[in-house]
């Protein structure tokens, strides 16, 4: 029961983060940074 509740809660948490546009801005910038770094290397 407790494990299920924790699992449900973490899934809900990640859903809220994934639907937050604020998350995707830094995430996209980070991916861009990795691509640039790889290119420079």
């Amino acid at each position, binding site marked *: 029961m407790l494990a299920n509740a924790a699992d449900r809660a*973490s899934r809900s948490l990640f859903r809220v983060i994934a639907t937050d546009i604020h998350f995707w801005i830094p995430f996209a910038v980070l991916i861009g940074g990795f691509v640039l770094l790889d290119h420079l290397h």
Partner: protein
Amino acid sequence: MKMNRVETETSAVVPSRMLPTRLRTLQALGIFCGFAAGAWLGGAEAPIKLVNPDISPITVSLIMVFGVFLARWSVPAFIRGTSQVHSDVLQAPHLVVWAVLAGCMWAVANTLTIYAIRNVGLSIAFPLWNTNSLLGIFWGFLLFNELHFAGWKRWLGVLGGAVCMFGGATLLAIASAHQAAPGKAAMGILAALGAGILWGTMYVPYRKAYLTGMNPLSFITFFSVGELVTMTLLAVGYRGATPLWHELVGARAVLFWLMLGGFVWVIGDLFQQYATKYVGISRGIPLSNTNQLWGLLWGLLVFHELRGGSQTVYAQVAGGSLLMAMGAVAIALSSATEREHSSWQDAADREGQRYGVENEYVRAGLEGREMQKGKITDKTAATPGTRSVLDWLLMLVTTFLFAVLAAMARLPHMEIALGWAAALVVTMLVLLATCGIALWRTTRFR
């Protein structure tokens, strides 16, 4: 379970606003933290100057990050105890993801600066990545209601100050560049701009965390996880595990200086986090960018850099320093009005509702005070100041490691003005003590 609130509860929004006197106190505190951050972030460059330039920049960065990691766990344990970190995570678990994301961004940006300096030299690279403050102002305005209802005078103060500091940084960087940049200019400029964009955007997670009420001391612990993992992956990926290990073993005489640099940097970053929390990213970032001025002071006075330079160089240093100081003062005098602060609170309420964070937790964080336990439903809030066995263990292990590394450390043969070094260290310690006491008295390090 706490996290269930994300989908089941909606926090009640309390319409009352912060007292004007409290707001003014917090603004002044944030500005003070911004200046202290500049001194400590700039001071972090000093131990690194003692390191042999033969060591690969990625390895230097990795060793510094080890020092940063140790500091980011032991300093919070010393100040408030790790139980506070646990309590913060239970209140706002989503911020762990944000902190790790910010740490990853820092590591990538820091590595990019190495490529930038190598390709275009410090004089071009530094001002380019210092554009992070302009980007910070943009994100602060767009995403977190900063500078809303601020009036044209404050807009002028913040934007004009940031532009002034950018000009000053350019002059200082040109003056302190020792070597002409080799080719690959486009790549270097791209790397420097990339670092600026990453660092400017890294403040989005910072602001997100502090609007939701998280304690900077808790945020930096998870930040360091993203930082260390990313930096280790980059170092192993680019250098190879065996050559990296050999380089680390070969560098044992300078490990202490690099890790000390990381430790000092963390103190500066901690002040920067508090500045971001209490004055926002649009003002906090430019203020902590005064670190360039302090780095220059260390270089000029302690390491005799620019000695025998031309009059043009000294004019650039004087002009750049003056411009940076004027910019910082302009920003410091443009603190948020009550009306602007109420739009920050709107952004905070929005965050609290989205992530189901307790309203009292959000408000207490924004007002820099402890939560009123009667007002919160969660009983996990730890009593501040209590330390567990884990806290003492963290402090002991860090002290022991630094003592061992100090015993192995060697001072390089170079001319150092010890008198000036002592004066700058004393200044930094005075800033640490006064700002630390102000933070304790006003917010109890909230």
